[in-house]
């Protein structure tokens, strides 16, 4: 196992070294965001003129946190976590997405109902209904990790 791990890390180093030689000359995204952002959903085009975000192939408007963006953020986050990291500390994501949860997102963010965090409103009862209709939506968070509460009943 140690040999495998050593080889994997060596491979990662070699790939990294190769990538360094092919590195884009574009300036890295600032991290953190150079100006302080307020609470709530940011609108990038309030300050940035419409156009390509430097170092990215996407328009600034693509990152505006509209209700549509909040609902469908998983795909852009999978592709381009560096852009998320410009404004969000990683702990922001971990409020909901974590391998071993300790309190539900709804409880952690009880004072932020605007974030529509999952498991609000009697979810211990509701999950039996949602789970019948679509168990795959539970799987993303509870299928391979974060299911220490589930095992109390589901063995």
């Amino acid at each position: 196992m140690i040999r495998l791990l050593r080889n994997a890390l060596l491979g990662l180093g070699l790939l990294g070294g190769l990538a360094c030689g092919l590195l884009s000359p574009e300036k890295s995204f600032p991290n953190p965001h150079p100006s302080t952002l307020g609470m709530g959903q940011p609108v990038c085009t309030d300050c940035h003129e419409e156009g390509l975000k430097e170092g990215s192939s996407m328009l600034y408007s693509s990152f505006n946190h509209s209700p549509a963006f909040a609902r469908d953020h998983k795909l852009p986050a999978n592709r381009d976590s560096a852009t998320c990291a410009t404004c969000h500390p990683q702990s922001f994501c971990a409020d909901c997405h974590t391998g071993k949860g300790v309190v539900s997102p709804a409880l952690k963010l009880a004072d932020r109902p605007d974030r529509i965090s999952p498991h609000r409103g009697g979810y211990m009862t509701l999950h039996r209904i949602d789970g019948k209709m679509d168990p795959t939506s539970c799987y993303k968070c509870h299928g391979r990790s974060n299911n220490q509460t589930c095992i109390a009943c589901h063995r």
Partner: protein
Amino acid sequence: MKSCNFLLLPVAFLSLHAWGQEVSFNSSTLLQYWRQGTPGFETSTYSPATQFLEVDATGLGQEAISFHFYGWGRSDLAEQTRVTGKNTSDMVYGYVSYRAPKGNLEAQVGRIAVNQGVAIEQVDGGTFLADLIGGFTFSAFAGVPVHYRIFDESVQHDYEYQRDLIAGGRLGKRFDRFAELGLSFVQDGTYPGKKLNGYNTYDFTRRQMAVDIRVTPNTLLNMSGRTVFDIADRMDLPADTQANNARVAEHDYNLALRLNPQLGASLTYTERNFRAFYSGTTLPSLFNPQEPGTFRSQGVAFFIGAPTSRFQGVVDLKKTHRDSYGDSLRYGGELRGSVAPANLKYGVGLHRVNADAANYSGIVATFYGLAHTELQGWVTYEKDRMTAAFNAIHHHFDDPANPSLYGKGSLSEIVGALGYQATPDLKVSCDVIRGVSSLMQAETLFVMRADYHFGWARKEGVK
């Protein structure tokens, strides 16, 4: 590993003291209290205390080197709340990072939280991300997967043995303004159940590949999605199984249209094949890889109002189909708005779910309905140092004979939160949550929380 978590912390603090140019600590303390009555049993009292801690230190020797830590610890001050014991903790991440000034190059070593294409993992190892010339992007990671306690102690050893190593990454190609294509891969564990002795029926390993795409030819259209393939060397299933052996784990696609500055639409399509999608599950009793058939859903949503508008509305409809269960249709809408001078925000939503009856195989086989209506509303308000939030959700069920409802026809939950910003770095608040337990018994939960920031750097980002 748990003890290692705590050992790492003082070591990290020492290094921060020695090298830290800008250090930021963010702490959240939650103290919960509730009583739970179960018919036929004595009333139980629970009072867990949970401490979250986040540390960010930048400029460690060089400007480009930083250290990041996030973790929590929890202790039950009254009766035990978790099956794993009264005291528990976890290091979510803790790594040293190097960020280059060009090409978004970043290398991280330590416990990392990976989100790269098909891989969303906690890994003890390293990762590397970079934008390359020609519009290519590259990311890769390798290490030992973080192990969790699983459902069956007797197979915990197999679980840890099988998941000995994890590696993966993503290669992407961006076409300016127009599109992005990506290919990602993950290999989780090198000892699949098939390679172990014949008595082992669990396979906790995973080998998946995904193709993802984004097409944005103009500001009006954004199509994105991905297809995930299960490419593992699987165990043979019993001959009489009806499991769906498709190798496509998931299709997940979204088409977003901006019809005008005030009106947008979103179309979604999802299809999941259970055996491939549940690959590597640690809870097969709940996520059964041998379930026959597929799950499919189609959705449409219309968004009214620009992000800067005082009012934003959503009207949505989603149809789902699970071969082994049937169909459901969820539709409704939500309106949210703000009154800027008063720092007041609010939202109301109404949704209806029509669903096929579910089969209940008890002593007498019968069916029960899952259809219900959901109504919710929320308000947040800020004035000077005070913050307040209120959220109410009500569900009305068509069929109280549903065994999950214990004869009740509806359930409600009300959440009230009052906060006080004592200093720029300290906020204290109290939440009161009135809801129901899993047995539909009314219960009240009290939460005291304190959010504290200290250090030598300004806390950036948004929450």
